[in-house]
């Protein structure tokens, strides 16, 4: 079973290398905790597709708001 939480964190670390991702709260919006903008979320979607062949349709982008929602939304796609 893929560690979806870690997969997302690894991608964020590459996209926003200046950010500290060690103590993220899974329930709080990623944008509240990190300096991420809409282009960064497009990069997250792109990296999910490139690295893991996981596609996130545009209408589902809001489901990537928190780490918890990422895990909940993406886990079935990694199953």
């Amino acid at each position, binding site marked *: 079973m893929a560690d979806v939480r870690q997969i997302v964190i690894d991608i964020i670390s590459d996209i926003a*290398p*200046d950010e500290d991702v060690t103590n993220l709260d899974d329930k709080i919006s990623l944008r509240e905790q990190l*300096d991420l903008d809409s282009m960064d979320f497009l990069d997250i979607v*792109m990296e999910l597709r490139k690295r893991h062949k996981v596609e996130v349709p545009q209408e589902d982008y809001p489901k990537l708001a928190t780490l918890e929602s990422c895990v909940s939304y993406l886990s079935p796609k990694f199953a």
Partner: protein
Amino acid sequence: MDDAKRIVITGIGLTAPNGNNLTEFREALLNCKSGVQHTEIRYMGKQVAGLCDFDEYKYQSKKLRRRGTRAGSISIYCANEAVADAKLDWNALDKSMVGVYLGITEHGNVETENEIYEMHQNQLDWKLWSPHHNPRTVANSPAGEVTLNLNITGPHYTLGSACAGGNVGIVQGVQQLILGEVDLALAGGVSESPQTFGIFAAFAAQGALAHHEDPTKASRPLDINRNGIAISEGGCIYVLERLSDAKKRGAKVYAEIVGYAINSDATDFVNPNGERQVECMHKAIKRAGITVSDIDIVNMHATGTGTGDVNESKAVRDAFAESSKTFINFTKGHIGHAMGAAGALELAGNIPSFEDGIVHPGMNVTELDPACVIKNLVINEPKLAGNVNYILNNSFGMLGINSAVIVKKYTP
């Protein structure tokens, strides 16, 4: 002349393959230290190139470096170094009256090639094409990155002018200051060309790509055995101001820009036209209100190609036939061809001559091509010239664009 119409250089920020500030660069030029090395180019393997080693994160976050381009990164480094060198009170400055004018040979090749390569590596999945591609490849991109980084709200754009770009950026800055469009110009040129395979492959196809088992000897303009261009990256950005403003704030003045000219061959896509080059140099000299005998140093464009060097050597001989004291040098033996940055960088390398009276040599000439013999050519060893008052800097490019900039030792 009215001080408000006299444009002066009050700051210099640069990165060259052999130095990351003017002091390092000048020392490397005087000591014939090359910045050309071997590097791996996609598909082609080992090639020579001039690569810079400045700290990309000195003035930029890792995230924004990743989002932008190498050209943007070089521009941001040079702009910040120039602003610091000029000792400007940046926070107090009206940023709406600052303009950014950067000459480029090309922009977007690197980023486009990278996207195509990634897509090719991923079964042509076009949905992997980056959303950053457009902001990275719009032609104003390197200048725009400078404005984002330094909160500049005045005008910014690049000047697409092939390898005349560095000079053309300077000319644009001068003109905008004289017009009163801005109060301060960050002007010069930038190149990220070694990151692209296409430019290497195209020069190779032309039989004009430099090669040598010792990369530091690959770029050898005017040598009988020269075999082409060593492609380089780099950047050089000047702080330009009206003399009246520079005096007001007690700025150190490096030099005054007193002459310039840009013209076109209208003869060929790639082959230069020496007659037009002579006209360009003479137009710049006329604008400066001086004669050819007043020019102390001419920095040749001299790229290391067969016909280019022969053409320009004749042009310089003809243009300065009536001067007995004009020294001639070139810079690409040291750093390769820094493309859009070349004009601005090579001018900077000669500006310290106003203080030290020394002409830096062109390097790597083992046997001078008889077709490139020029009176007072300075090669392989620096030459003490004594009092240097005027420097003329040549930069030419494809599609027949010629440019010459003349700087004068500052006298209040």
